């Protein structure tokens, strides 16, 4: 068993608000530079950059998990993370089906492009990725778990799109694999005092939109390896795996 450092919420150039520098090479280099062992690629309502970054990192000492930061119909942001490319593919169909048909205006919101590891544009997403999907948080949670993925409400205390702000309180009927905190005005005391009553793992992620934000917040995990199944155990605190610490750099 070993301790690994994970930042499971990173945007790329595909997110309209993601910086132009958030390319496969830059993200992987920055993650390695920050000593991360594991990252998750989570663009708004899209998984289309995941495979390129995962393939680019294949020869390096970094595990890349595929996912998305889903915006539900209640405008709650939730991370959905997956362990296989089949699951990612099915989830991408789900996202495409439920994304609103509103065109992105790059001049206002930013470009939404998929770039390869040589920084060539492979694809341009025409529909706006930042809007809420046509599906509720209940449906998203249920579908993510149907695909055996991880469902993690993002930046739960944030005023913009945090679950508690949007819905007043943490809905008790949903199955959360963890709850996420991102950089903000959190002191250790704040985190301790505001830990939700329910017993979920709390994790730190950077929610990086710019290169220098990668790894700013991260989570230490005690696991056998960086396999997805190990991450699942660690978030559940089972099989001897666990979340061992929250790190702020």
């Amino acid at each position, binding site marked *: 068993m070993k301790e690994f450092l994970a930042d499971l919420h990173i945007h790329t150039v595909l997110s309209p608000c993601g910086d132009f520098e958030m390319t496969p090479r830059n993200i992987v280099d920055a993650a390695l530079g920050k000593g991360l062992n594991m990252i998750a690629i989570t663009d708004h309502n899209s998984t289309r950059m995941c495979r390129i970054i995962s393939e680019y990192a294949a020869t390096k000492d970094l595990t890349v998990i595929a996912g998305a930061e889903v915006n539900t119909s209640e405008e709650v942001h939730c991370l959905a993370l997956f362990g296989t490319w089949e699951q990612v593919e099915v989830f991408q169909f789900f996202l495409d089906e439920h994304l609103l048909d509103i065109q992105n205006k790059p001049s206002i919101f930013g470009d939404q492009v998929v770039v390869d590891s040589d920084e060539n544009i492979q694809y341009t997403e025409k529909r706006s990725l930042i809007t809420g999907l046509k599906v*509720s948080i*209940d449906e998203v949670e249920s579908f993510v778990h149907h695909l055996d993925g991880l469902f993690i409400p993002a930046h739960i205390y944030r005023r913009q799109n945090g679950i*508690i702000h949007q819905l*007043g*309180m943490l809905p008790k009927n949903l199955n959360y694999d963890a709850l996420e905190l991102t950089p903000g005005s959190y002191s250790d005391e704040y985190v301790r005092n505001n830990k939700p009553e329910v017993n979920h793992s709390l994790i730190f992620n950077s929610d990086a939109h710019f290169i220098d934000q990668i790894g700013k917040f991260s989570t230490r995990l005690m696991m056998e390896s960086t396999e997805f199944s190990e991450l699942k155990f660690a978030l559940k605190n089972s099989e001897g795996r666990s979340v061992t610490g929250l790190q702020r750099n």
Partner: protein
Amino acid sequence: MKLIELIKILSLTVYSPNAVPDIEVTGGYTCDLLSDVMGSVNEGQIWITLQTHRNVAAIATLKDVAAVLLIKGLKPDQEMLDKALAEEIPILGTNENAFEISGKIYHLITQ
């Protein structure tokens, strides 16, 4: 104004319950951010929103609102409806948007 009169005048849909309680609507609050509603809506007010999540019923109960009014033809989620029925919170609906219906209700209550 009585809730039942408001329903009649504005032709509101009643999702729950079948028998509307004989209560007075003292005001209204229009907002979709549930954390804000929790801090701001008052007892006896009608809460106008597009959110159909079950937490709407929970907050409506907590704050003892007169009714929840869903706008733009939105229907309550089943879980919201079940909870509202159990707690006897009237859930209403309209096809109008928040601006139009809030204006009409404001006019009716304050005239």
